[in-house]
């Protein structure tokens, strides 16, 4: 049985339907990509999982428990930690305070200290800026903090919504290297991304969303083998033009 199973969810914002029948599964230890252009319904799917948005139809089951109608705080306590789009760190809190709040549900003080030590060793920049307001970190540093903060709750599953958005190419590389490391540690990850090429390199399986529906589900190789999807989403206009000319 899958760790997370979404079946046929529909989400409308007023008259606009953002998600129209998305189904997907994530198994324990898997890294699953959710890709698609802007407005495809990726973020709405993500917000539905964490309880910020309530789907009008469909089911979301996480390790045997329905998540529909559960509050965000309950869902975090079940073991799903989100790294939200735009990082959403607490700017007026220090780096340390952001991390401590990530462990808000943890009672074991010693364990919290160990985890802070572990993640500030993992991300040395966070140790360097430990007592500084998080709002003064650069975009890439804030991304590291957002990930470390999520990990402080010792989640079973990490949801990451566009962690590479707005970062310089070098930092995008760093973020994907980090996801690879987390994957190798055995973390289950659902990764929402627009950077399709780099996503395909690190995921076990991928779902391609388009206008609120799943257009493709399979392995990265299967997606690459499909020329039409390849043209539309991976290489953009450049390759499409080339293949349009007689070879």
């Amino acid at each position, binding site marked *: 049985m899958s760790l997370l199973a979404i079946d046929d969810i529909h989400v409308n914002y007023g008259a606009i339907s953002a998600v129209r029948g998305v189904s997907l599964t994530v198994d324990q230890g898997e890294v699953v990509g959710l890709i698609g252009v802007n407005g495809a319904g990726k973020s709405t799917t993500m917000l539905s999982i*964490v309880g*910020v948005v309530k789907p009008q139809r469909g089911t979301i089951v996480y390790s045997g428990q329905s998540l529909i109608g559960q*509050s*965000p*705080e309950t869902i*975090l*306590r079940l073991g799903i930690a*989100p790294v*939200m789009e735009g990082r*959403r760190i*607490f*700017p*007026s*809190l220090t780096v340390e*305070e*952001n991390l*401590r*709040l*990530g462990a*808000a*549900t943890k009672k074991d003080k010693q364990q919290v200290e160990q985890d802070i030590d572990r993640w500030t060793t993992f991300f040395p920049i966070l140790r360097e800026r430990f007592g500084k*307001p*998080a*709002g*003064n*970190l*650069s*975009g890439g540093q*804030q991304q590291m903090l957002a990930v470390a*903060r999520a990990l402080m*709750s010792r989640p079973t599953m990490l949801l990451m919504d566009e962690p590479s958005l707005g970062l310089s190419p070098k930092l995008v590389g760093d973020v994907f290297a980090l996801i690879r490391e987390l994957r190798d540690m055995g973390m289950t990850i659902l990764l929402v991304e627009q950077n399709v090429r780099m996503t395909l390199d690190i995921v076990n399986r991928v779902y391609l969303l388009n206008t609120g529906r799943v257009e493709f589900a399979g392995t990265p190789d299967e997606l690459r083998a499909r020329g039409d999807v390849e043209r539309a989403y991976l290489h953009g206009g450049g390759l499409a033009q080339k293949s349009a000319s007689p070879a």
Partner: protein
Amino acid sequence: MITDLAQYLVSALSLGGLYALMALGLVIVYGILRLINFAYGELVMVAGYGMLIIGRSPWPWIFVAILSILCAVIAALVMERVAFRPVRNSSPTTMLITSFAVSTLLQNLALLIISPRPKVPRLPAVFTKNLRFGGVRIDVLDLSGLIVSIVALLALTLFLRKTVIGLALRAAADDFTMTRLMGVRANMVIAAAFAISGLMAGIVALFWIGNTRSTTPTIGLEPVLIAFIASVVGGMSSLKGAVVGGYVLGFLTIGLQTWLPRDVNAYRDAVLFGIVILVLLVRPEGIVRPVWSREAR
């Protein structure tokens, strides 16, 4: 001159400290719910009538004071649960109107149940005494207000920095949804904010009524107005702003009272609020800006 200055400092620090506590009680709720709770003044009233009723007991005044503060805390929690929780997801206007409704309701309840006339609660005799240090005469009421407000400010600062609930309260002011996504229960944070606002109102009530020496159904009007102005002057976006605004307003009020010519002193509040308007013209966002710069995001 020196003695004038010493007396001025003690009075200003005392009044400023109490204004700061009042402003904090308002801003801590505003930061999370974006609600300016105009029923906040009625918490001062509740504590005042608490002092009146509990004061009839033979218990020492300090117990009366603590129980009165507790009354304000409980009133704040009930207010949140009964009036504000049902409209929490409504528009800010709905919440604002709700706060006016709660304020009016509580005032009229006091009119009906207790009395429209001022009531004099038991106050410690020492509140009317003063101490002499050399040539300097200092009112006990001022000195105790100064000490209590500073202790309360330090305790609140520690609470907000060192406890998980405190961190959650500050984080919720930055991003409430994200705070919930850390596993922090929304109801718990909001209830904590209201409890602190009740605590602040209760502490202030002791000294406010220590000064007016009587409780009326409308006693909350002036404190809530001052808390609102102090927090706007200091900057609504932060708790630090509330504290700075409180002290600025306290120093201005006592300063004008001390040094304005006698015939102009009747217009003290007009001069005071004139200065407030000037400050806001120069710094519409308040005196204190966020410690982090938005450009860095």
